[in-house]
């Protein structure tokens, strides 16, 4: 993991300002950069007031679903006599997404501060940060920062000398994508198999250990301190298009593109400028063929769709996809779409928790078919089967992993049907050289 690129002129570095600045890793360094003012402020406020600021700011969940954070926090009823919990979802495993990793690597204290504020705001004394098991460096960074914070009395039974209790624990995942699903994550913390739970009850009613629980993404929580310090109005101004999508968002860009990396832009930024100007456009002599804008779970966009997109929650939906986790995966004309979609499907088949029939059987089945088509053994009937299976896999299961597997397949067949048909009629991948076939 290297250092991040220099900040592009059109980026709005709110979260990523200190990426690459190793001095920001320490507690002192972070305080010099304005850290923990927000926590100090928050602990002096009424929890409800904090929630109101967040509601006002328009901050929405950055993990994929885009649920308004303030509203989510307001579901936690104070004084119900039950312990409340905050979970921070740092199990970032969506293919093509690596923004939380950078937040934790470079600004762990931002996350800790956000977690502490969040815990206090929802009446929780305990917060769990569930970090993906493969994230060794982020784990180390957050672990060190947490140690410092405890040593300095920022956290613990008397957080910042206010007499309020904020405890944060790190829980290390063990390499299961599904544990990024909020209820599977809670099962995993409880020591159970990471299976998503049936909803309702929602976590705010019965979450971790059966108690009211709020779960937020790393990026969401990391944004909280600055919102608190600078005010909701300040944050709300970060908006280029739809007023429902405010603030800045980190996009992870990878694939066949000139300058991959993490880019932070104000929501509503034109995707075309983002791809061609900020990220340098396609590699020399190539042109874009397909863009997956929000991690592997969202429908695939054609370049035309992408170029017409404004980068916010509504903008991506308007162009046939979703903002998702902000993991932009770019494919150029050297790539075989059948192979790519097959790879996605195989990922989901491998990561299915195996509870629901449609997901367990469906993901494996579509993978088999896609791999068969890619190898030149498919039939036209297979395409119908794929669409039929995808339909049966959508909206019928406990969590949305099965839907996520189906989304690229349906959009892929719709938008790149000619490639599938070329595989079937030519009985081989047209992009592969004859000698290999």
């Amino acid at each position, binding site marked *: 993991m290297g250092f991040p690129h220099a900040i592009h002129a059109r980026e709005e570095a709110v979260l990523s300002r200190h990426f690459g600045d190793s001095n920001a890793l320490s507690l002192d360094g972070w305080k010099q950069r304005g850290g923990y003012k927000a926590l100090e402020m928050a602990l002096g406020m009424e929890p409800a007031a904090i929630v109101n600021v967040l509601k006002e700011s328009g901050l929405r969940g950055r993990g994929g679903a885009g649920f308004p954070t303030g509203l989510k926090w307001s579901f936690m009823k104070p004084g119900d006599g039950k312990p409340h919990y905050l979970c921070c979802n740092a199990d970032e495993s969506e293919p093509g997404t690596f923004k939380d990793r950078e937040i934790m690597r470079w600004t762990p204290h931002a996350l800790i501060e956000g977690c502490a504020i969040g815990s206090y705001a929802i009446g929780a004394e305990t917060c769990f940060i569930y970090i993906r098991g493969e994230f060794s460096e982020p784990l180390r960074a957050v672990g060190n920062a947490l140690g410092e914070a405890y040593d300095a009395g920022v956290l613990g039974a008397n957080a910042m000398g206010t007499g309020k209790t904020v405890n944060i624990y790190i829980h290390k995942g063990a390499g*299961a994508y*599904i544990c990024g699903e909020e209820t599977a994550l809670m099962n995993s913390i409880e020591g159970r*198999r990471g299976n998503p739970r*049936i909803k*309702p009850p929602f976590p705010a009613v019965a979450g971790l250990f059966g108690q009211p629980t709020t779960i937020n993404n790393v990026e969401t929580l990391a944004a909280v301190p600055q919102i608190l310090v600078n005010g909701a109005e300040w944050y709300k101004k970060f908006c280029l298009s739809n007023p429902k999508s405010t603030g800045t968002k980190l996009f992870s860009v990878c694939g066949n593109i000139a300058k991959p990396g993490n880019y932070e832009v104000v929501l509503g930024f034109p995707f075309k400028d983002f791809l061609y100007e900020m990220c340098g456009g396609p590699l020399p002599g190539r042109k874009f063929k397909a863009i997956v804008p929000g991690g592997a779970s969202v429908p695939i966009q054609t370049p035309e769709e992408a170029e017409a997109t404004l980068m916010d929650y509504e903008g991506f939906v308007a162009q046939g996809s979703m903002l998702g986790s902000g993991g932009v995966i770019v494919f150029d004309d050297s790539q075989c779409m059948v192979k790519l979609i097959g790879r996605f499907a195989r990922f989901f*088949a*491998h*990561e*299915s*928790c*195996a*509870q*629901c*029939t*449609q997901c*367990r*059987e*469906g*993901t*494996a*089945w579509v993978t*088999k*078919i896609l791999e068969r088509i890619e190898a030149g053994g498919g039939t036209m009937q297979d395409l119908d*089967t794929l669409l039929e299976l995808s339909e*049966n896999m959508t*909206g*019928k*299961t*406990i969590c949305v992993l099965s839907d996520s597997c189906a989304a690229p397949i349906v959009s892929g067949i719709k938008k790149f049907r000619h490639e599938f048909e070329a595989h079937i009629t030519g009985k081989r991948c047209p992009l592969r050289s004859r000698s290999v076939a």
Partner: protein
Amino acid sequence: MLCIIRKHLAFSHRRTMPTLTIDGRTTTASAGTTILEAARALNIDVPTLCWYPKLPIVGNCRICLVSVSDNPKLVPACAFHVADGMVVATESAAAVKNRQSVLGMLLERYPTEEIPENGSRNEFEQLVRRYSVPTTRRSSLPPRTGDEREGDPMIQHDMSTCILCTRCVRACSDIQVVGVLDVAHRGEHAEIVVGADGNPEHAGCTWCGECVRVCPTGAIHDIVPLAKMAANVMDKPSSKVRSVCPYCGVGCQIDLEIRGNDLVRVTSPWIEETTPNDGSTCVKGRFGLDFVQHRDRLAKPLIRRGWAKRDNRWVWDPQESGYSAEWGRRGGPWKQIEREGNTKKRRPMFNPLRPLQMLDAPLGDPRDRVATPNDWYAPFREATWDEALELITQQLTHLRDNQGPDSLACFSSAKCSNEENYLLQRLFRAGVGTNNIDHCTRLCHSSSVSAMQRSMNTSAASGSMREVEHESDVIFILGANTTESHPVFGAAIKRAQRRGAKLIVADPRRIELAALANIHLQLVPGTDVALLNGLLNHILAEGLEDNAFIASRTHGFQDVAAAVKPYTPDMAEGITGVPAALIRKAAELYARGPHSSTLWAMGLTQHRTGTDIVASLLNLVLACGKIGRWGSAMMPIRGQNNVQGASDCGAIPMVYTDYQPVTDPGIRHMFAEVWGVPDDRLSLEPGLKVTQIVKEGSPVRGMYIMGENPIISDPDVSHAEDWFRELEFLAVQDLFLTETARYADVVLPGASFAEKVGTYVNTERRIQLALKAIEPPGEARADIDILLDLTRRMGVHAPFTDAAGVMLEIASVTPSWRGVTHERLGGAGLQYPVHDETHGGTPFLFDGRFPTSDGKATLVPVDYLPAAELPDKDYPFFMNTGRQLYHWHTGTMTRRSTGLDSREPTPTVEISMTDAREMGIADGDPVRITSRRGSIEIAARLSPRVARRQIFVPMHYREACANLLTNPALDPYAHIPEFKVCAVRVAPVRAHDAYEEREELGGRVALSAGDD
């Protein structure tokens, strides 16, 4: 109080009753019910696979998805709660399409070629047919896999038919609270696994078969030995008969599946039926009933060959052809139990304990491992019923007339029905004129009965198992290894703990429940009184006693308060070895309850101070007021299927039915009238008890034994065996030629529980009816017929033809069974007292008053007295005896059950790791255990459950009979022997030669000469 609050909450919760429409039918359901529950109430059949009543809802099969108004997605009926105004369509086009898709996907990895054309074999295939899903596979997905249980003698897997509904996983972890099964791996590789390494033994499997019961496809199925269970008809039972399990006192209802005259399988009632077991069974109930068809079953009466009929009279003639002089008057070509205990036991070729011994050929018939040796039959000849009964009648009459009625005695049986027990005591009281009637209650709960009688004039549990499971806040279990001896109740206790109940376990061993318990009081064996007095001392010191209860409901509190004064927790720690802090904690937990249940079994009773121990426990119960309220049960857990009923029906020497004393002439008159004999035929003298009968110098010269095997179960067996050899006449009525029956003059073949109609009383006073499923083998007769025949031959009026008729007479002479008839015992039976024909039974007792003359209970002060024999220099170990999960009592039934005996084929002694290491004993090594009374050789089982210098020997094995060693010291009130404590020494058997030498010296003589 909590209970009231809970109920109140539940009630207020229910006040909002949503009205909804399901498939066009409007219904009202309480808030919090699921769509599925509401639909089931309307008899609308929403298909389900992963859902099963009472199991946690996981909603993973996705087949129950239904359309709901205003919801764009389908919702799972099993998990989605009803709401007001909801319109549900269970068979909407979308729902049906989804079901077809789910079934289709499951069929892709299912052996579709095995589905019968247009038919179905299981729940899953029924749904495939119901939704007309084509059974041709389209994908090339591999068949499903999972852990198989190859060679397992009871449970088999065929994971190619698994659909991963995870019912088995939840049944294992949430009903039985064992957690052997789980789902491993992800995605298409997901499969059901058995523990971490596929070995059920390592995973703690108890072979209860709950997984078999819930599996919707038969991927997990039971297996019964073919040769025994009728090979060709295994899968096709022709009918099903409801019965009651013949093992422990939980009284599980079971269904016997039969074909022709063969019992082909045992299943359990549907989980939603009201049964004491909620349809669960343990390994014995489900897999341990093949003894019924064992080839050892006696099919004809047997008469000892020396008996000959001369001049119309039976005479003993040792010269009679076929009788060998070597056998003596009452012997045969076999080793006495003592010699068997001393037989040289080769170190087993395999480790008898681990790994699991699977049978080589599970479908074969490995029944020969344990069977009646052929030469045991040598001293007997087959006889006709007429000959056998004539001989018995002649000898009973002869002894009665010549040596007096009290020269005769009978052992009734806790395994026999109420009707049979009643008839046998009727026969001996009215026909012979003696009260020498007893049964094995003497050896188990007699001390509980004497203490409970003394204190509150009762002799049964005050509460129900259900209330312990659902309502108790604290469960105090003393000397009861519930998970092995009463596994279905043990699981209920574990479920109670999961619900939030606190568990306090007092036991010298760290048994399963002790390991789970919130507090384990691991006391030195036999120091129970000190512990219980210590608990009460602390409760009084803290002022936690229930003063209102004490004042209004009891006598004698002050005496007890004074008596427990010296037993401070610190003083109790000195005696019991239990840390004083734990005693204090347990006392506070128990007293604060608020609903504390008290459960105990043999660990308290089988001591020479058994009555005192139970009395000190009752003091604790009464002082804290933990009785007479729903949720505070006082429950001696009964060990045999009808030990409660046998006592209730008068098969004990001091009382008639319902504990009416034989010494009361008025009661005698009532019985004499009903039985049609003159008053003076019935003795006013209380009879002798088991331990007084089988004793040197006892006046008893002739015995009739029905279904008991005292030669294994009595203490100090070598003396007991000698005593039986000296009898003038012995008749035994049993299923097999038992160790006791082989000394008999006449052996009568009786019927097993499956071959007769009868009622049994379980540990919570529940009278249940077991129906006849099959005919007894050969000429064997239902015991009730045998007893009626004999009663008439003894000249006593017996106006009955069947068990139902006998029950009418029992009800007429038994005040607390007044309204009991066979007709009323369908379903879950009746918990007595049943006051009249319309009364519905009594789930718990003593709400307001005790059945004493003034309605108050009495606290009886008791002092600690150590066990009769304590370890010393020569015999440094405490020996404890008891039951194992896979065997039962003297092993007559379980050792003839293929599955059970294959799990526990070898007698073993539990010994602590440390002791074993010090003596150089490895797991499975033969060791010799010697007490002042005898010596046995047995395999060592290194166990973390026993404390240092303590060993545990199971009671089930003839070849290493624990009762060769036990101490016959008796409780002065109940005459129960001290099975639980004696002093022994343990030595490894290093070289077989050394042992042979000893055998040459001649058994006990040589050993005791060296010992004393």
